[in-house]
């Protein structure tokens, strides 16, 4: 037999398990246009829903007249808040403990807000219906600036909260105030600041942006009146949570709801929340008895679902003359828009912003975040980010640069002398986290050597001299970043969403012939779960990855899980997968021992089989064991070979990385060219290097967009200025830089296979890296801080303000 002559190494390679750049199984469908995305779903008699949206950012609704719309051929129904009110569905709870209007109830709070829902036979008839709905508005004073929103005489945005001094996260001290969240030791931090040799202070703004997956959000709701069963297909990053929420707000029993996430065209946080379109489609399907599809247009998407960031972070960082950091202080004003619809674990209204001490050993720190209502869209989602880690990383990586300027020090050296040392892990941070593992110095030196840091600095200095002599108009900026992520939410003891603990799950069934199916509580949006999770199982139980089917996203079949966002799939569901596989292996061991007529302890696992210790010629392969589990009565062992695991992680994981960017900046045009971008990531054990590299390319490109031009901008009237791809910057292949990837491996000590998650690291790390490069180019001329995005005009403006245009 071929099998007999293969060495364990050869057999192991054949499994395509951990560490293998296995080609993706998903791609055979996707490359042929055979994906099944929500807009590809077509059911008999299916109707289309579309929204009438508010042209005003703040207005009272005097009347809505639907008569003309109902007369439009093909229009079957028009829903307004009045229709939803008797069902109690005109408002819905948000994930952040606030509530949000499903359809405008008396007033609107942002431009693009959903006012009425038109149901028609097709998208053209629906659009005609939308155009025919007449709404009378009375405009109200608009507030788009979160600081002005807190003025005593600022307009009252949320009249529904009048008189409520207690919010979901503690006291509210103003009618537009949502919460204050405090972490760390305020008094001790202020004492350190008062006595420090040096204190650098700066306002760091991380502007409002949007995840903008290429596929917008959408759903198909189908209520079967005969069975009483609601099926809801949609672009859901958390299908089980959607089922529970749908049940709670609609009153339909949870077993009568089936939520299916089909293929998803990118999520990046945009598809975590529950949107009015889902609720209205469900109601419309109940009312009409027909399936109803709703898919956002790109403009709807950029205007109404899920902005990200918008944090104004006032920082103070204290240090000794030699550059040892002694304390960090941060006050953040968080612009949440008209409703607090952030998707954070319940106990963390500002997400994991308290990871803002970054990679540094900072003895004391204090953080306060004030959430504020404005006339902007709700959201505040974790855009390829584990709940505000991006904001935290940007803040600390800017503050380090600001401190380096104050100390007149090299920023690489300043980082080096402040990194948490390898021997300090597990490390207790001043703001309450226990970092599981890390080796920052090794990563940093590797990165600096890889790019030839000293040579680069010399070249930069020479260029500066040439610039001063008038020989060139281009400066060089060197952007540095060392970030620490916190992902894998999370331990049920402190992480839940709407009371649902943030565990995750995996169920594995081995078939009699030795192949398998596994189902998970997560859902891929391009991360390649069907490929990578099979690799984990392959390595754990010795069944080739190619023989394992992966299924996610159908709540009728998959075990309950909290879904995919916050880089939690590998740390949580990946761990559940390994644990379920280990249960199967444990049972397989008993079966093997029985078949080999030895004691359980006398066999050991070897790649794809159990071998009798000391007698390698006596073994049973997993294939043989699988068959035996179905065809033999084994005393004391149940038939079959299946297992399920619900994994509650003991801690978060803490991936980290060192990124370095070299940028050329044209002082006269404000244009930039990224000459090189080096990304070293440490995500612990690497499951599929090809997919990791792809994640880094993609995340860094999102970061490039955010840092260099992408924003959600409003004018003072609350008009959305960036609602199309004409105005909202998404880089093409032409301007996107080339990336060099690298890695170190520091396995997570508490994760079953040592993996940490990587999907978000490149977004977290690249934004400060690009931004620091821009700042670094102008450092010799006195630039300390300039807000993103660094588009051509803003860079030109920096040069102009520094007097570099003569």
């Amino acid at each position, binding site marked *: 037999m071929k099998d007999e002559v293969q060495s364990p190494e050869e057999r192991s390679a054949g499994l395509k398990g951990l560490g293998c750049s296995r*080609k*993706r199984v*998903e*791609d*055979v*469908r*996707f*490359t*042929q*246009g*055979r*994906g099944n*995305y929500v*807009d*590809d779903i*077509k059911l008999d008699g299916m109707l289309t829903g579309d929204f009438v949206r508010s042209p005003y950012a703040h207005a009272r609704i005097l009347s809505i007249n639907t008569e003309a719309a109902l007369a439009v051929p093909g229009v079957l129904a028009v829903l307004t808040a009045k229709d939803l009110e008797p069902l109690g569905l005109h408002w819905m709870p948000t994930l952040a403990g606030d509530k949000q209007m499903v359809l405008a109830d008396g007033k609107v709070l942002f431009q693009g807000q959903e006012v009425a829902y038109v149901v028609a036979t*097709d*998208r*053209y008839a629906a659009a005609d219906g939308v155009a025919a709905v007449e709404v009378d508005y009375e405009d109200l004073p608009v507030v788009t600036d979160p600081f002005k929103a807190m003025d005593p005489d600022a307009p009252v945005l949320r009249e529904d909260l009048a008189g409520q001094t207690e919010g979901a996260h503690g006291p509210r001290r103003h009618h537009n105030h949502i919460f204050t969240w405090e972490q760390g030791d305020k008094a001790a931090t202020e004492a350190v600041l008062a006595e420090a040799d040096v204190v650098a202070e700066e306002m760091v703004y991380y502007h409002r942006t949007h995840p*903008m*997956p*290429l*596929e*917008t959000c959408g759903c198909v709701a189908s209520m079967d009146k005969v069975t009483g069963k609601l099926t809801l297909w949609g672009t859901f990053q958390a299908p089980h949570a959607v089922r529970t929420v749908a049940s709670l707000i609609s009153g339909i029993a949870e077993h009568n709801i089936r939520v299916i996430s089909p*293929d*998803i*065209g*990118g999520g*990046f946080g945009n598809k975590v929340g529950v949107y009015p379109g889902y609720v209205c489609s469900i109601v419309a399907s109940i009312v009409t008895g027909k399936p109803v599809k709703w*898919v956002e*247009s*790109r403009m709807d998407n950029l205007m109404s679902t899920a902005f990200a960031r918008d944090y104004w972070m006032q920082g103070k960082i204290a240090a000794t003359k030699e550059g040892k950091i002694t304390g960090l202080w941060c006050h953040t004003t968080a612009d949440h828009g008209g409703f607090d619809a952030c998707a954070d674990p319940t106990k963390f209204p500002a997400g994991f912003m308290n990871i803002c001490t970054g990679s540094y050993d900072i003895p004391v720190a204090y953080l306060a975040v004030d959430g504020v209502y404005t006339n902007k869209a709700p959201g505040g989602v974790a855009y390829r980010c584990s709940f505000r880690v991006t904001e935290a990383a940007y803040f600390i990586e800017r503050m380090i640069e600001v401190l380096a300027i104050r100390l007149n020090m090299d920023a690489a050296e300043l980082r080096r002398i402040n990194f948490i040392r390898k021997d300090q892990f597990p490390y207790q941070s001043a703001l309450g986290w226990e970092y599981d593992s890390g080796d920052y110095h090794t990563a940093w030196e590797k990165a600096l050597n890889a790019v030839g840091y000293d040579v680069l600095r010399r070249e930069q200095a020479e260029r500066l001299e040439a610039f001063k002599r008038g020989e060139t108009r281009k400066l060089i900026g060197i952007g540095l970043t060392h970030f620490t992520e916190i992902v894998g939410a999370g331990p049920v003891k402190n992480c839940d969403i709407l009371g649902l603990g943030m565990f995750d799950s995996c169920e594995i069934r081995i078939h009699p012939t030795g192949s398998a199916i596994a189902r998970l509580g997560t859902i891929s*949006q*391009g*991360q*390649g779960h069907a490929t990578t999770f099979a690799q984990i199982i392959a390595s754990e139980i010795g069944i080739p990855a190619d023989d394992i089917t992966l299924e996610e996203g159908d709540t009728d079949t998959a075990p309950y899980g909290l879904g995919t966002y916050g880089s939690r799939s590998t740390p949580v569901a990946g761990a559940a997968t390994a644990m379920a596989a280990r249960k199967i292996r444990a049972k397989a061991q008993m079966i093997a021992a029985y078949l080999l007529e030895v004691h359980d302890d006398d066999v050991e696992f070897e790649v794809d089989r159990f071998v009798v210790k000391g007698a390698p010629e006596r073994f049973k392969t997993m294939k043989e064991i699988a068959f035996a589990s179905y065809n033999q009565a084994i005393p004391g062992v149940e038939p079959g070979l299946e297992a399920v695991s619900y994994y509650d992680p003991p801690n978060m994981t803490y991936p980290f990385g060192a990124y370095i960017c070299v940028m050329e900046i044209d002082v006269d045009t404000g244009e930039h060219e990224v000459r090189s971008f080096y990304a070293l990531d440490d995500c612990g054990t690497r499951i599929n290097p*090809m*997919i990791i*590299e*792809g*994640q*880094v*390319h*993609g*995340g*860094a*490109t*999102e970061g490039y967009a955010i840092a260099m031009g992408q924003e959600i901008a409003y004018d003072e009237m609350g008009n959305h200025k960036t609602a*199309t*791809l*004409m105005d909202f910057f*998404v880089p*093409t*292949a*032409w301007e*996107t830089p*080339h*990336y060099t990837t690298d890695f170190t491996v520091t396995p997570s000590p508490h994760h079953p296979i040592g993996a940490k998650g990587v999907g978000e690291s490149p977004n977290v790390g690249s934004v400060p890296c690009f931004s620091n490069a821009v700042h670094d180019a102008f450092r010799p001329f006195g630039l300390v801080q300039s807000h993103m995005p660094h588009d051509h005009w803003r860079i030109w403006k920096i040069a102009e303000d520094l007097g570099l245009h003569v």
Partner: protein
Amino acid sequence: MSKMHIKFHLNGQEVEGLAEPRMLLIHFLRENLKVTGPHIGCETSHCGACTVDLNGKSVKSCTLFACQADGAAITTVEGLTNPDGTLGVLQEMFREHHGLQCGFCTPGMITRAHRLLQENPTPTEEEVRFGISGNLCRCTGYQNIVKAILAAAEQLNAHKAPSSSEAVGQNVEAAE
């Protein structure tokens, strides 16, 4: 609204149907003909997810009314698969080089790359980057897409015997 009768060649087969004059080609393909390879990412001609090959040119099918395609020869990503059901060279190279993640941009991207390699069978990396700049991808950062297209060009040039995707291209031209 009265409907128009529309007929064209789609992936080598004649298809026909009725559509309002205002109906966009992408909606006609996806909703009337159930050809769901081309996707919708914007409907404003920015993203390229809806790219099809029309009379030998890459066209964003959200930019065109269905009736404007009457009599045309159209190839979508579905038409780039080999007749025996195996992946065409570009499709295979996208898989080989991890040129896709969520897959949403992929049909448009591959269809554009197919035409690009007809226009310029030996492109440089720069030419590929410029040549696909009408197609947005949010997942890959393009690096592996560029790699995949360059690898496909190499393969297609190596076996000058007509591969299936070239054959499709010739069909399109023959139909012009």
